[in-house]
């Protein structure tokens, strides 16, 4: 789960990292009020989960509160990479002397949290990594010790010459690491970390991605979730305990297990179709989950056929069959359903399905081919 910039700033501030004043607003009136309170020049920043906000026109400077209001009117409601801007952050426009990058990620390679710093701030760190990798300095942290002071200092010396700034930056690195651990993040970054004409080091922009597996353990972080920034079908799926990702195709897919779900989507493509979604009903099946899954898939107007691919292990095929029958009794499913199931309680499932007038297949390739063909027949 990604936090918005204003939420990430609040997390950093809570851990003692200096961030400029500012507040979040949903209306241009509020933007004007906040800017008046801040006084002077302000920056108005769109709060959406998308990179490249500046390039898309979602970040604007304003020299006074009236101008801030005008700017906000243009930004609020605009679309950035398909996401509608519902909120903006209003903050004082800081004078900047230098821009750096600092971030912590979970690194698959070293299997530890890795701290990365670069004097090349204010640009996408992936770009820096591609063009000038020697300008990025990394340290794998032993999570049992945390980030030690001398380690933080050594990296801070790569950013600044002035010892006062080095000390400030080192403290920020340790606080950033603490924030990373406390939020259960997979990424926490400050980009840019800037120096001001007075010599202060402050965090101008912040990004935090939280490991979804941490959310059940951290209700205060889960409470930061902004469901308006997600596709409604994905919100519904999460509440039903399903993993669902909407795609652009027309073959609705309902599968047990993430790997098999991906392989099923790939096979749809292999036979000339396009998958409408990724959907994993998970390990322990119950018919209710299948009903929810069918409701979500049929809610997508693009879907022309629905493909079930179930390999029963923990998941029992008869539970899935019951769910399919129950769903078609509860609401109208107007597109054809192709069902492939094999494994645990397959025979019971076939009986349930055939009694309800469905055909059950056992071969994955055959089922996928049929589902793809049916999208053409319906076109």
């Amino acid at each position, binding site marked *: 789960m990604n936090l918005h910039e204003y939420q990430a700033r609040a997390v950093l501030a809570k851990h003692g990292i200096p961030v400029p004043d500012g507040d979040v607003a949903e209306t241009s009136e509020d933007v004007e009020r906040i800017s008046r309170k801040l006084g002077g020049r302000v920056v108005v920043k769109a709060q959406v989960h998308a990179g490249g906000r500046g390039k898309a026109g979602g970040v604007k400077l304003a020299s006074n509160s009236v101008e801030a209001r005008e700017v906000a009117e243009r930004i609020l409601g605009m679309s950035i990479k398909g996401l509608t801007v519902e909120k903006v952050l209003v903050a004082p426009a800081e004078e900047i002397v230098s821009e750096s990058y600092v971030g912590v990620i*979970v690194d*698959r*390679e070293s*299997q*530890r*949290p890795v701290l990365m710093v670069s004097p090349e701030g204010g640009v996408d760190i*992936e770009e820096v990594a591609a063009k000038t990798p020697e300008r990025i300095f990394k340290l794998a942290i*032993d*999570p*049992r010790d945390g980030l030690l002071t001398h380690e933080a200092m050594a990296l801070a010396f790569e950013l600044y010459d002035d010892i006062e700034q080095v000390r400030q930056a080192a403290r920020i690195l340790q606080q950033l690491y603490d924030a990373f*651990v406390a939020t*259960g993040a*997979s990424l926490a970054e400050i980009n840019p970390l800037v120096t001001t004409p007075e010599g202060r080091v402050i965090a101008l922009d912040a990004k935090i991605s939280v*490991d*979804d*597996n*941490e959310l*059940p*353990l951290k209700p205060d972080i889960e409470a930061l979730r902004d469901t308006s920034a997600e596709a409604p079908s994905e919100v519904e799926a999460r509440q039903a305990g399903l*993993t669902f*990702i909407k*795609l652009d195709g027309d073959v609705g897919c309902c*599968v*047990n*297990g*993430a*790997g*098999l*779900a*991906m*392989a099923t*989507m*790939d*096979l*749809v*493509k*292999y036979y000339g179709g396009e*998958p409408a979604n*990724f959907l*994993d009903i998970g*390990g*322990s099946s119950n018919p209710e989950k299948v009903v929810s899954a069918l409701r979500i898939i049929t809610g997508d107007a693009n879907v022309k056929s629905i493909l079930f691919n179930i*390999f*029963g*292990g*923990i*998941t029992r095929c008869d539970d899935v069959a019951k769910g399919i029958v129950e769903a078609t009794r509860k609401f109208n499913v107007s597109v054809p359903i192709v069902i492939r199931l*094999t*494994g*645990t309680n397959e025979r019971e499932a076939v009986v349930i399905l055939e009694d309800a007038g469905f055909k059950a297949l056992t071969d*994955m*390739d055959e089922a996928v081919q049929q589902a793809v063909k049916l999208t053409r027949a319906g076109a």
Partner: protein
Amino acid sequence: MSIFIDKDTRLVIQGITGRDGSFHARQMIEYGTNVVAGVTPGKGGQAFDRVPIFNTVAEAVWQAGANTAVIYVPARFAGDAVLEASDAGVGLVVCISEGVPVLHMTRVVPYLRERDTRLIGPNCPGLISPGKSKVGIIPGQICQRGRIGVVSRSGTLTYEVIHQLSKSGFGQSSCVGIGGDPIIGTDFIDCLAAFEADPETDAIVMIGEIGGTDEQKAAEFVSAHVRKPVVGFIAGQTAPPGRRMGHAGAIISGSSGTAAEKMAALSRAGIGVMKRPADVVQLVKEVV
């Protein structure tokens, strides 16, 4: 022979009285796995069916001689459960629990490297050496004794591939599900090396997916160190970038970790690349 587990495996089940633990305990016993103990704190002294329950893994090791542990405890306790088994001297720990916070594993996996414990998982289906022992949740009835080694990051997709192999008469020496998380205890290379050294394995099937670079590194390892034929599959060719596809580790970040990149790496290493799961039969036929 087989890899990691066989007839000498003496298993302790952590979380044996829980919903998943109790169900799979019976499945494993039925399959013939030598389940010597269960652990549920507070239920020491009781029994699950005929399996004695202990309060700690250490007691299960001292009193029942457990040498392998399988973990079905809730995700938030899984990291500690792995360390408990390791502290008790268990050599092989298989963590089935799903949804384990990745930061928990950063505190576990490097720690295991300093001692003699191999971790498989977390978020994995476990492993099976058909006809000998099964540790985890892979359905025993789809497997057959034979000479193909299977290693995979997935669960049900692995079952699909095993099913295809068994149907065509290709039994398996061992099948290992290494798990779909970004930080795992045993990777492709560990399993490839073990299969290469196993005299009862003739060919290896590896099933990878998008995210990370494990498959690419495995391909390099195959080029340099594996003489047995290897066949591979990568799931997620149609996955959009930046989205976590069910498994925490199955995510294309930026432009890295794509299926295309991994399939190219496998090809370069001389690994037969399956375009779809059903291709496994034809490709295995060509190499054995």
